[in-house]
């Protein structure tokens, strides 16, 4: 068996704010293979976003091991983390997080310019990515001139433009109506079919079923790790309030 793309071993994350210690993650074991589409579910505050931020090297774990593509990445400097984020991770956020001052084109170009890529190459890749999400007709627009669904499609283009090893999405449909949410989900599904590895946090069982596999978290730990279609049923039976 080949090495998984992502391998977490006994990962913990403790936040200190004042005297309060929050154990956001307590001993997470997880492996994600290349080309997998994983969804993470669980009640609010159970540590989903924290897990995602560590997966995406936005943050470092308090303890435990994290191998990304066979490279140990749990204890890197912030500069090394920035470099890996830039090349291997693509983020999609609930609130789109497009930079308001920049055009659609410039937003998508952002990760490539931080990489120091030549302008001509950047231009080709940005156009390809926008083409892929169906937003190439809006390159000169500013985010404020787009609908929520369009903004999220641009955000998807920004996440995939650098051909990352993994795309991480934190409730990408949370700020969208169901029609636009469905469209973004279909887009993710297609990207996965074309070979992208995706890890997505979602509350919505309708969207969770898009994934190959659902990880269920509770109180900072992975409590169930089920391939579809069991996941759906498990969530319902768990009795947690889903929002």
């Amino acid at each position, binding site marked *: 068996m080949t090495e998984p793309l992502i391998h977490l071993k006994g990962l913990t994350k403790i936040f200190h704010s004042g005297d309060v210690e929050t154990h956001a993650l307590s001993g997470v074991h997880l492996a994600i293979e290349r080309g997998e589409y994983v969804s993470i579910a669980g009640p609010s505050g159970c540590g989903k976003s924290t897990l995602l931020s560590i997966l995406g090297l936005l*943050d470092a774990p308090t303890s435990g091991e994290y191998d990304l593509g066979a490279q140990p990445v749990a204890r890197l400097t912030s500069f090394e983390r*920035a470099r890996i984020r830039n090349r291997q991770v693509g*983020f999609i*956020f*609930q609130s789109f*997080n497009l930079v*308001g001052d920049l055009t659609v084109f410039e937003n998508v170009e952002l990760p490539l310019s931080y990489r120091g890529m030549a302008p001509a190459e950047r231009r080709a890749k940005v156009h390809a990515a926008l083409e892929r999400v169906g937003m190439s007709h809006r390159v000169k627009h500013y985010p404020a001139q787009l609908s929520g669904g369009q903004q999220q499609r641009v955000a998807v283009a920004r996440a995939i433009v650098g051909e990352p090893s993994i795309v991480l999405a934190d409730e990408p449909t949370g700020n969208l109506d169901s029609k636009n949410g469905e469209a973004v989900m279909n887009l993710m599904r297609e990207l996965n079919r074309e070979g992208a590895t995706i890890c997505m946090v979602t509350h919505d069982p309708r969207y969770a079923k898009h994934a190959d596999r659902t990880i269920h978290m509770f109180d900072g730990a992975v409590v169930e790790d089920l391939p579809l279609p069991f996941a759906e049923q498990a969530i319902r039976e768990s009795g947690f309030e889903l929002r």
Partner: protein
Amino acid sequence: MNDLRWAIRALLRAPSYALPLIATVALSTAILTSTFAVTYGLLLRPLPYAHAERLVRLYNHYGMSNDRGGSMSPPDVADRAASRSFISSGAWQKSSAVLGGGEPLRLTTARVTRGFFPTFGVAPLAGRWSNDDDAVVLSYATWQRRFGGADAIGKTLVLDGRRRTIAAVMPRDFAFPDADVELWEPLVLPPSAYDDSNRGSEYLEMLARLAPGATLQSAQAEADVLSRRLVDRVASRRQFLLDTHWHIVLAGLHDDLVADLRRPLLLLFAAAALVFIIGAANSLALVLARAIARRRESDVRGALGAGPLRAAATRFLEAWVAIAAGGALGLALTYAVVAAIVRNGATLLGHVEVIRVDAPVLLFAFALLALLGAACLGPALGAATLTRWRPQAVKTAGDTLAVRFFRSALVVVEIALATALLSAGALVLVSLRRLAANDPGFNPHGVLTFRIAAPESMRGDNARLVALFGGIQQRIAALPGVTAVSATTVLPLSSDDNTATFHIEGRPEAPGDGMPSGKYRRVLPGFPAALGIKVVRGRAFDARDTPSSPRYAVIDEAAAQRYWPGQDPIGKRITYSELDAQEIRWRTIIGVVGSIRHGSLGERPVPHVYFDALQAADSSMTYVVRSALPASSLVASIRAAVHAIDPSLPVDRILPMDAYVSASLAQPRFGTAVLSAFALVALFLTAVGIYGLLAYLVTERRRELAVRMAVGADERMVLRFVLREGLRLALAGVVVGVIAALAAGRALGSVLYAVTATNPAAYAAVALTLLAVAIVASWVPARRAAALDPALALRVE
């Protein structure tokens, strides 16, 4: 009422907002209000005389000089006084008198005609005017100093050996002709002084009050008619008066007093106004940032049914409280600054007694604060209603664009104004350094000067005067450590002067302005050596010259070049027609000495002519003593040497020559210091402004910065990103500021010396300074941005 209490409480809980706001308001208000107090006091405040606008000065103006004009002779004063345009007039002569009793003390006095006090229409504080020749009038300060404010009327003083009775004490703010006048004594001239033959003895100053119905213009017209008539009055003077375009000139008293100060004061006022605008921009930016940061609060109030004014009430009320506190602090500062100016500024600004913080100045300060308070309503209300206009505004990072633009514009304006101020400061500084580097033409270092005025009894007795002044020279020359000693009637860079036209033998008088003229001084032998002036050709006066020698003159290079270009002036003969009126007595030029700058270090040297004081002594001379000894150890032996000749003779104005040099630079130095201080405050406020804006931007855009980090920007990139933001503002401000400074440079041109208002090096230095300050001010917010947690991008607001 509740709103006000909440506002004060909110302010107390937010020192990081309150303190910079209060400090900014205090500093900028103090600077502009003190400058206003000085400018208003000197330029606008009515003089403390009855209907001061009806008072005029009169001058004898000779067309060849471009100054206001000169003093008048007693017959001049008499015929001007008879003019129908005047209801009354007075004349005076600045003088001094020795106060007896104890160590002889010289008082600065003004000898005034009978019409002098009544013309001002100011009642004495105590006593009455007296026509008695022995009556004197004390200044308020002298009265306080000598009598401690106790009744002095009728008491006596011994002045120049004569017993005088104190007839009156003047009020505190009566300081005419100068604030240094300690006492007024009657000017009593013999009837013969009014003879036409004395038209050339111009030593009186004159002032008159316009008659009802007369205006300055009508009075000048009458004076013009009189001028034409007077030209023909004395046949021997006719040609001279025509040659020199002589005429009588009138000037309003107030305009006349402030003529030289107006331009520099208005420039300083403009500079202070710029500082205030920078401070105001800073204050607005602070209020706006605060209102944006707290807009949730006003949103909630709005949701609870408050109108926009009520919803924003806490914001602008707290701003008003801070402005009031800053204003109070600023006023306290203003009082301190104005008191310091009044205490120390008399030599620089003249009539400082008119500078004070009173109703007009307070009104000005309140107007400034009210303006500032009104301006703060804008950002407070704007921020509170922002979300109402655009309910979606908070959603994406770009929505506060309008606010961000407004704040950036404020900071760009600040930087531009600071650039303009700093440029002005740099130009004035360069100009001052060039001025100070000018060679005065003599060596002031190691020279001590003092003045001796012969006792009244000796005046006009040449033999006794020569014995006195020559005797003092000999005794001081014999002191150990003294390398050279001489004396002159007029010291360079002092406020004294004597200029007159002369004739050159065999040279036809050029019509019009062609008449030769020169500053003339009577000097004791050895003058060039003592003051360090080089002898270029021939010789200076020395031991060979005695009262009975032939009549000689020594001229300087400026005179040689102007009147004998390409010739050797030695052996040529000249005469001062006016001085030697009765018969023509020629003087032979025996030497040429180096030129000196008399009026200021900035002026081009003008011709000087030196006579031997031993042949025609004046009644007072200023000695120059060159010695390697420190001045302090020299003073006692000089006093002893003088008192060995006459124990009752006061030794006045003991000053190193260097003091005259630095006094001549005092005004440009003061202006430069004030402007530099303004520029530094401006720079500081601007730095605070840049810091505030970027700190606000980093807070406001922390999510965007986190997103940039999430997609791969590392700490260095974020740091650079914020620094670039600061530099961009600075560049925009510097460009606008340099353009503005170039445009305003014309105004500055008149106070600059040997440097043009377009000096590129000065602007380059200013631009670099501002960019450096911008980087420093951006550094802290930039560091804070680089330390942001990138995981912030995942958090939902």
